[in-house]
């Protein structure tokens, strides 16, 4: 299910002295099965971009197309869009509202027009995916759970709609290291099953490990777009707009500054370790 945006423009606070252009003529295409990481400092327009992609905002000009159909055209089936494109916002735990976890997770699927039985099945699958035993948790109140559990339930609520494209806005903010790792594993699992992932994140290490493509944004424009290796290669250019690369890439750059002969395409820990070992074997240190 390819998703493409064409010359998108968007403004906040139109017609007041506070008017800002959040997106300037942004165009990009995301093909099936990609794992796209979107990076950029606060206020660069990344959240606006994903909200436009999900049809939650209307662009000032330009189009958003899912499967080649303009989602803002009159007569477009919004229900289908909601089923196709799932969105997990920052701190999704604040969107829980039902009496029980089961009901809350079933909210999306039922709204999307599934039958009770279908929804029930999807709820169980989604809860299992995020690491719960459905039978145990379904009857609990979501407000009695811990923060991390709440977030998982909220994410299950989106996954239960069985989206083909999953948009995530800084989903791991505030999670502990183990929670982060588990979450990234889950996202990768979904990606392996063919779900297109679009994820905003400040965690460059996570993106270096999992993303197949990284889009860097600055002041409402696309600043860099390519594989993690390509985007992270030019560290100086990233630093110019307040961004950085994965820790391994930064460490490799520092070693290179000290005279080590390391390539610019080291972005993961194991790559860095392998390069250092190789350097050692060559007897240069």
């Amino acid at each position, binding site marked *: 299910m390819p998703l493409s945006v064409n010359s998108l423009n968007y403004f906040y606070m139109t017609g007041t002295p506070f008017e800002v252009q959040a997106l300037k003529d942004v165009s990009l295409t995301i093909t099936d099965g990609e794992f796209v990481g979107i990076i950029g400092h606060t206020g660069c327009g990344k959240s606006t971009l994903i909200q436009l992609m999900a049809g*939650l905002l209307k662009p000032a000009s330009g189009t958003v197309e899912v499967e080649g159909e303009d989602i803002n055209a009159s007569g477009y089936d919004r229900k289908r869009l909601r089923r196709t494109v799932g969105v997990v*916002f920052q701190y999704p735990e604040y969107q829980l509202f039902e009496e029980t976890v089961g009901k809350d997770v079933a909210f999306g699927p039922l709204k999307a027009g599934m039958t009770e039985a279908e929804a029930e099945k999807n709820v169980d699958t989604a809860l299992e995916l995020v690491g719960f035993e459905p039978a145990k948790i379904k009857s609990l109140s979501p407000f009695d759970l811990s923060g991390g559990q709440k977030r998982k339930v909220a994410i299950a609520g989106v996954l239960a709609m069985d989206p083909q494209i999953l948009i995530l806005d800084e989903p791991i903010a505030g999670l502990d290291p183990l929670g982060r790792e588990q979450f990234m594993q889950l996202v990768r699992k979904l990606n392996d099953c063919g779900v297109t992932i679009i994820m905003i994140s400040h965690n460059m290490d996570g993106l270096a490990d999992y993303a197949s493509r990284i889009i860097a944004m600055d002041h409402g424009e696309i600043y860099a777009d390519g594989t993690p290796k390509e985007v992270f290669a030019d560290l100086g250019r990233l630093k110019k707009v307040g961004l950085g690369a994965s820790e391994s890439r930064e460490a490799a750059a520092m070693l290179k500054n000290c005279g080590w002969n390391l390539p610019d395409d080291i972005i993961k820990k194991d790559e860095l370790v392998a390069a250092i070992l190789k350097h050692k074997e060559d007897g240069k240190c």
Partner: protein
Amino acid sequence: MLKNITLGQYFPGDTVVHRLDPRIKILVALLFLVAVFVVRTMWGFLALALLFTLIIALAKIGPVTILRSIRPLLFIIIFTFVLNILFYSGQTIYWQWGFLTISKEGIEKAVFIAIRLVLLIVATSLLTLTTSPMQLTDGMESLLSPLKKIKFPVHEMAMMMSIAMRFIPTLVEETDRIMKAQTARGAEFDSGNLLKKAKNMIPLLVPLFVGAFKRADELALAMESRCYHGDEGRTRMKVLHLKRMDVWALILMLAVSILFMVFL
């Protein structure tokens, strides 16, 4: 969608009017309100309208902004206008049907009241457009401080007002966020009949209230851990100082308004 609600409609700027002490501005606004009620002739209204226009120009507020502030009350203005025309029984009657009459006096009265309402709104908007909500509460607190003598909790009221105002944008933002999150899950907020609409609000209201209570709790804790204990011995970051400009503005406006009230 919700981003367009401007609270207290403050319109930032750096003009003479913006820089005036909020206390002076509140007093002058009150003065204007009195003047609008006391003035009885068309000339008086014209003079007040001219005065307001002058201040609007000084504050560099666009005419559109002023008109926009009248819009929410347009219905009330038109409603009272029509009521006054139809129900006021005057001497010179143009048209009559049952208890409905249109008379010369009725039309005059209706026009007067409509103008009064518009001028009232403009006068108060002048205050709220050029004074930030925080300045407004500070000014109020300072003006009402004599009431502390009779144990009226002026400071607490002002603090409650500032907190409420401070959190309105936060709540609006939160509402917007939750609405979007639930919309993405297929919730619809603007379809169906009244009962259905009310039911559709549940996915929005429950998280909103949970969040608001949590935030109130956290705020109370944060305030207490910084030793907040009310008014006694509390100093301010921005102390209000009357400048010469403020005094002159007050004297000038007082003189002009009294002139209008006596002669027009």
